[in-house]
């Protein structure tokens, strides 16, 4: 028997006139990490809230394992562990006691819960803070350690469906990597993972499937390779535009551009690998004339495809401030074509 741990069909939910989830369908299988990507306000948290019974759908079905989660939310919650987007409330607790409590609530024995806390501290490298108490008003533990503790609480005991809502917020780069690996491991151990994030570049490495939400609708889904939609060898030419915002690539551009996305003061051009030299030459000339502030050339990523799907033409919807621009590729100034 091969049952989905989560199957959502035609889910619709609004707040007043705003439709936050519009006819969404998706599935998560055991052992699979499914990324749910979207801008702020795309409807991701609304969707999660319906799965755990905080919000009631206006239409559609949610099946968690064999349980109808719309009709029996209490039973469905016994299959789900959620790390919410808000900080997990652990004031008064140490990370160790918080993880143990979470394990106990999910049926671990005291001994297993203690072992789980020790293992997770190792896995996430939070050992030095394990016995440091979280105090009210954000005292005692940093936001990053609190977030990691919240993650550890969600995974303290194996769960059929693990829902992580922006688990990497506040977390430093090295521990973020540990966390992504830990997420992947939970999938490999048999949990179905629904990973809500706007961190496209990092999530790409560990997900099996991606669902891209925009303004409450699924605008694309599939594997990362499928969604990237271009050759693996394709390159991304990123232009940093001057403050007045004129984009030289809108006019005379003698490059064969596969895809062009503008987001705020950045323009992302996807070009074939064979055009690397001419792309660099063109961009260097533009910079010499001060028509762009700078540029970088790197392998095309999923982020380009994601932006192409979700950046809107009208300025009101143009979310310019990507909170976590992928820093890695910009060091690769020269193409390896």
């Amino acid at each position, binding site marked *: *028997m*091969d*049952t989905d*741990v989560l199957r959502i069909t035609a889910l619709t939910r609004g707040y007043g006139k705003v439709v936050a989830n519009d006819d969404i369908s998706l599935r998560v*299988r*055991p*052992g699979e990490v499914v990324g749910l990507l979207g801008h702020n306000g795309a409807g991701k948290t609304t969707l999660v*809230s319906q799965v*755990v*019974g*905080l*919000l*009631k759908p206006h239409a559609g079905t949610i099946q968690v*394992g064999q349980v109808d989660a719309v009709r029996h*939310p*209490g*039973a469905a*919650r*016994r*299959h*789900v*562990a*959620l790390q*919410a*987007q*808000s*900080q*997990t*409330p652990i*004031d*008064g*607790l140490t990370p160790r*006691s918080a993880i143990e*409590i979470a394990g*106990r*609530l*999910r*049926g671990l024995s005291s001994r297993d819960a203690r072992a789980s806390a020790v293992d997770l501290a190792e896995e996430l490298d939070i050992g030095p803070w394990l016995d440091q108490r979280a*105090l*009210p008003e954000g005292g005692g533990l940093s936001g990053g350690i609190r977030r990691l503790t919240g993650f550890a609480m969600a995974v303290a*005991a*194996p*769960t*059929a469906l693990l829902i992580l809502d922006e688990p990497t917020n506040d977390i430093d780069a090295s521990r973020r*990597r540990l966390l*992504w*690996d830990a997420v*992947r*491991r939970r999938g*490999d151990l*048999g*949990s*179905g993972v629904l990973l809500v994030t706007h961190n496209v570049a990092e999530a790409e*490495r*560990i997900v*099996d499937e991606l669902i891209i939400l925009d303004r409450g609708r699924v605008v694309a889904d599939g594997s990362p390779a499928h969604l990237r939609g271009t050759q693996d060898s394709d390159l991304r030419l990123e232009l940093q535009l001057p403050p007045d915002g004129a984009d030289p690539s809108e006019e005379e551009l003698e490059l064969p551009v596969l895809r062009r996305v503008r987001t705020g003061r950045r323009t992302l051009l996807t070009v074939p690998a064979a055009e690397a030299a001419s792309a660099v030459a063109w961009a260097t000339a533009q910079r010499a004339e001060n028509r762009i502030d700078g540029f970088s050339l790197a392998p095309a990523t999923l982020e380009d495809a994601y932006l192409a799907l979700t950046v809107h033409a009208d300025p009101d919807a143009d979310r310019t401030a990507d909170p976590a621009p992928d820093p890695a590729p910009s060091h690769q100034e020269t193409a390896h074509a």
Partner: protein
Amino acid sequence: MPEATAVPTPRPHPLAPVQVSLGASFRTMMHWSLAATGAMLPLIVLIQAMLAAGIIIGFGFVIPDITPASALFLSSGAPTILLLTIGLVIVPQGISRAKASGAFDYQRALPVARPLLLLVDLVVWALIALPGVAVGLLVAWLRFDLTFSFDWPLLILASLLVTTMATAVGYAIAVSLQPMLAQMVSQVLVFFVLLFSPITFPASQLPDWFQTVHAALPIQPAADLMRAGIASGSFTADARDLLVLALWTALGLLITTRALVRRK
């Protein structure tokens, strides 16, 4: 990225759902809740002591040449004020904060029966509030050198019922109103309980219409019941007090349970 170990594993069966007994869930949630609120306990006892001193010593200044009878009335009312202040003021403020920070919804998303969350809070707040009865009486004894005539079973029943009623109603206020509004209502309630309720003075001093209002509110029955338990030689309570308190408790529990269980 070689460390992304996306090894295609054979699809396992879905993992089993959480199976934990209500008792075990209750104990674990108690542990959590006591750790979270427990840090406030010394502070709350201190506040109760200061409030008791304010009522007993401060009201003593308002009434010059206080008679032993009015001293006993004042003193036997102080514990009620302390219990009501915790339940109607500190509880809604705590719940409103939990709603605003997401902690409230976090707990509702746990694999725990939601009415159990309310039960845990009722017990924790009772543990926090009940020392107030002793604190209030201690301050009164120090000030007036009174002798109380305790009816222990009635005092224990009254203390538990008044605490539960106040916590349930305070909880209901917090889950029914927007956080800002809940805060304001709870502030206003302090003054209402302290100054406009027949706790530290007899109801007969109120205008008739206001006496009628208080007959339906839970405050006077709470005070009467507590008083009968503290100074059973001088005061009695009747079954009506018990009934009004029980009805308000039921109403508070009903509203709160509904808000906890219901999906928006």
